[in-house]
């Protein structure tokens, strides 16, 4: 069979976006359950989102230490016994504190759901927070903090967020080594009582949890186990003195970390979807402008990318890369050149089609299967958004023009709005 290898095979453009149906219902106490029942394996994943994030906490580390310490022992069971049971069922418990929620995740074979949920109930409702366990967690977290503080990438990222959100709000990521010595057991117990509560809690279930899910969840989590109304949310204060250039020297650095970015808004802003697409052109995929110029043409770095970070009350766009010191100025200059090109020139129809098709494929990948879908959906609940967000993005993606992208670049990629942070040499 003779084939012409120079000609691409025929392909289809995908123009529909199917989001798996999400069933929602309330438990007896008002906890909202979001169910994505799909998949061919008999496994289930349950994410519990409690209104117990670092924004609700009164000082640094409280939210994350409280979250981690949940599995270290209850009034009924030692920490070691909890671990033993969970491991024996082949299950996994994940714990993570974010800004507006603390998350406890259970991944389990579906037929062990009754047993593993019973353990989870005990962990959530009856932790004892022994001083010894808190101390163990703190000393290990302190060491991780020190190791992270040694990385130029972390140094630059922290300086960037502190600069735009200030030191007082958790978005600023300002934690000092002294903070590790200021946490008391009483504060942790208090924080747990006020924020691991039915009010404002969401449970996201994905996979094949079986037919008795609702009854099981009501049995373990459907009572009014606390009357707390939860802790207050608060927004970052606008910063008066944002610096446009920050240099943080580190003598033994082999490479310098560069972060160049600007403050933005949250996902609810009308320009947000278009900006996501503009960001993809700039540095959001392997074929992006920044990767092509700075890695594939100039070989200055192993990787460069830009991304938009959004929180409930704010957001930012940032370009990040690691380069050797003598390439630092050239890399910075080329990053600003790429911003300028997007302001000055309309992108070609070919590049726009490529980015459009890539992002459509990316959406299919991001929503492939119940677990991937629930991960994306979880991000929306954390921000207080509905799945309409995904459909709106898809509609913008299908219709956006090169002129609209250029208009966004002129509005949001102005050099004077950007902050440059460099850590290293």
């Amino acid at each position, binding site marked *: 069979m003779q084939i012409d290898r120079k000609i691409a095979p025929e392909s289809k453009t995908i123009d529909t976006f199917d989001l798996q149906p999400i069933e929602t219902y309330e438990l007896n106490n008002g906890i909202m359950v979001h169910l994505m029942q799909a998949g061919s394996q008999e496994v289930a994943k349950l994410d519990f989102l409690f209104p117990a994030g670092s924004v609700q906490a009164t000082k640094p580390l409280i939210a994350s230490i409280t979250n981690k310490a949940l599995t270290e022992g209850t009034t009924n069971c030692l920490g*070691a016994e909890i671990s033993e049971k969970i491991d024996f069922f082949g299950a996994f418990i994940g714990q993570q504190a974010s800004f507006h929620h603390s998350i406890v995740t259970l991944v389990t074979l579906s037929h062990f759901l009754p047993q593993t949920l019973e353990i989870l109930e005990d962990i959530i409702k009856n932790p004892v927070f022994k001083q010894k366990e808190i101390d163990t967690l703190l000393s*290990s977290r302190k060491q991780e903090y020190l190791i992270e503080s040694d990385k130029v990438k972390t140094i630059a990222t922290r300086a960037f967020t502190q600069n735009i959100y200030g030191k007082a709000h958790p978005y600023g990521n300002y934690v000092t080594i002294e903070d590790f010595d200021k946490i008391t057991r009483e504060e942790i117990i208090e924080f747990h009582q006020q924020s691991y509560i039915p009010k404002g809690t969401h449970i996201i279930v994905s996979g094949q949890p079986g037919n008795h899910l609702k009854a099981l969840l009501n049995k373990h989590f459907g009572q009014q186990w606390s009357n707390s109304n939860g802790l207050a949310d608060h927004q970052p204060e606008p910063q008066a003195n944002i610096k446009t250039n920050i240099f943080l020297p580190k003598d033994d650095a*082999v490479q310098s970390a560069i972060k160049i970015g600007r403050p933005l808004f949250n996902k609810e802003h009308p320009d947000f979807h278009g900006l996501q697409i503009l960001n993809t052109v700039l540095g959001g995929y392997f074929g992006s402008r920044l990767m092509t110029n700075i890695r594939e043409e100039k070989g200055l770095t192993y990787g460069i990318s830009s991304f938009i970070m959004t929180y409930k009350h704010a957001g930012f766009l940032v370009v990040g890369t690691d380069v050797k010191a003598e390439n630092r100025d050239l890399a910075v200059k080329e990053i600003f050149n790429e911003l300028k090109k997007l302001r000055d020139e309309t992108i070609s129809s070919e590049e726009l089609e490529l980015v459009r098709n890539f992002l459509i494929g990316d959406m299919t990948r991001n929503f492939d299967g119940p677990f991937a879908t629930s991960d994306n959906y979880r991000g929306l609940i954390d921000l207080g958004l509905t799945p309409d967000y995904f459909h709106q993005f898809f509609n913008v993606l299908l219709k956006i023009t090169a002129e609209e992208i250029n208009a966004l670049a002129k509005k949001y990629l102005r050099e004077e709005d950007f902050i440059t942070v460099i850590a290293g040499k």
Partner: protein
Amino acid sequence: MINIEKRTLANGLRVVVHVDKSTPLAAVNILYNVGSKNEQADKTGFAHLFEHLMFGGSKNIPSYDSPLQMVGGDNNAWTNCDITNYYLTLPAANIETGFWLESDRMLELDFSEESLEVQRKVVIEEFKQHYLNQPYGDIPLLVSPLAYKVHPYQWPTIGKDISHIENATLDDVKSFFYSHYAPNNAVMCVSGNVDPDKIFVLAEKWFGDIPHRTIADSNIAVEPKQTEERKLEVERNVPADMINKVFHIGGRTDDDFCTVDLLSDILSNGPSSRLIQSLVKDQQLFSEVNAYISGDHHPGLFTVTGRLLPDTKMDQAELAIQNELDQICNQTIVDYELQKVKNKVESTLVFSEISFLNKAMNLASFELLGQAEDINYEVEKYQAVSAQNIRDCAQSTFRSTNCSTLYYRSNQ
């Protein structure tokens, strides 16, 4: 049970297909049987550098990435000491684009001085970013040559020295390609929402005319048995001390592979495992401990490593690890504990089978080492391991003359 259909083309390319109708996507995974163990001692890091060059355009297609992105696809690759693995995912309706791209770069790369020049720089920055500019990043560069004196596992995949990458020539690149990249030295696995009969037709259409090539005989030296305890001490500008002990074990296809894997699970898989409960939670000597096996094709390593808390002395840390290893050598573990780690192996396998891309990678790897169908007998093999097997394995592994220890001290 994972469904599998497979064929071998006349040129030796093995094609494995797994159907998963729960996804609208498909994956094409191509594994080449070449890794850093196939390199010469004065040209290390080559297999990995070559992986970068595979994205620089092929004989008939100037760009690999753009046509794939144009049909909604995405791709990446990785190299280890044994294999180089390339994978892409895309909407299943556009699967032929994947065949077109992968077959052209198997046929012939567009060898260009320019692409080599750029990727040399990129890989050097990768070397710095991951190994030199990270706290503890140089541990693999220190441990491998301590444990291996003869076998090429003594250098890490990134290479043992930046100069080897700097000195790579276009002739080196060409000869590497023709001696390792060939249909008869590769396994292709396609998974996802596909029809096996159509996949075999496409495989024949795009890969059928790629010539069979003679594969370089690597003559890989066998590592002699270690007979003395080895130690290395370094001081670095890091916040905490670390200890890293490695022991020689067998290869991936050896009979005791599952036993040694379960042994590492008993020590540190999951929060209830021995090292975590004893050394982190109970004695509070370490902030982090880990035990794992390399899973390499040739005889590999069993690593036990820990990061010390500020009040822990190095000899105290080593003794505490040694006590745990002695215990597992001297006392047969109870059935309950063995069943616990077996349950975890089984559930981990079920969780990993959710991803069609994971399945494609695993199937290609099983086909290379024997046959793809073996993937369905893994759990049985683990279930067959006895408590006595574990104890025997621990005794033959955890001997001081089989051990190399790296003391990585903080100077802060």
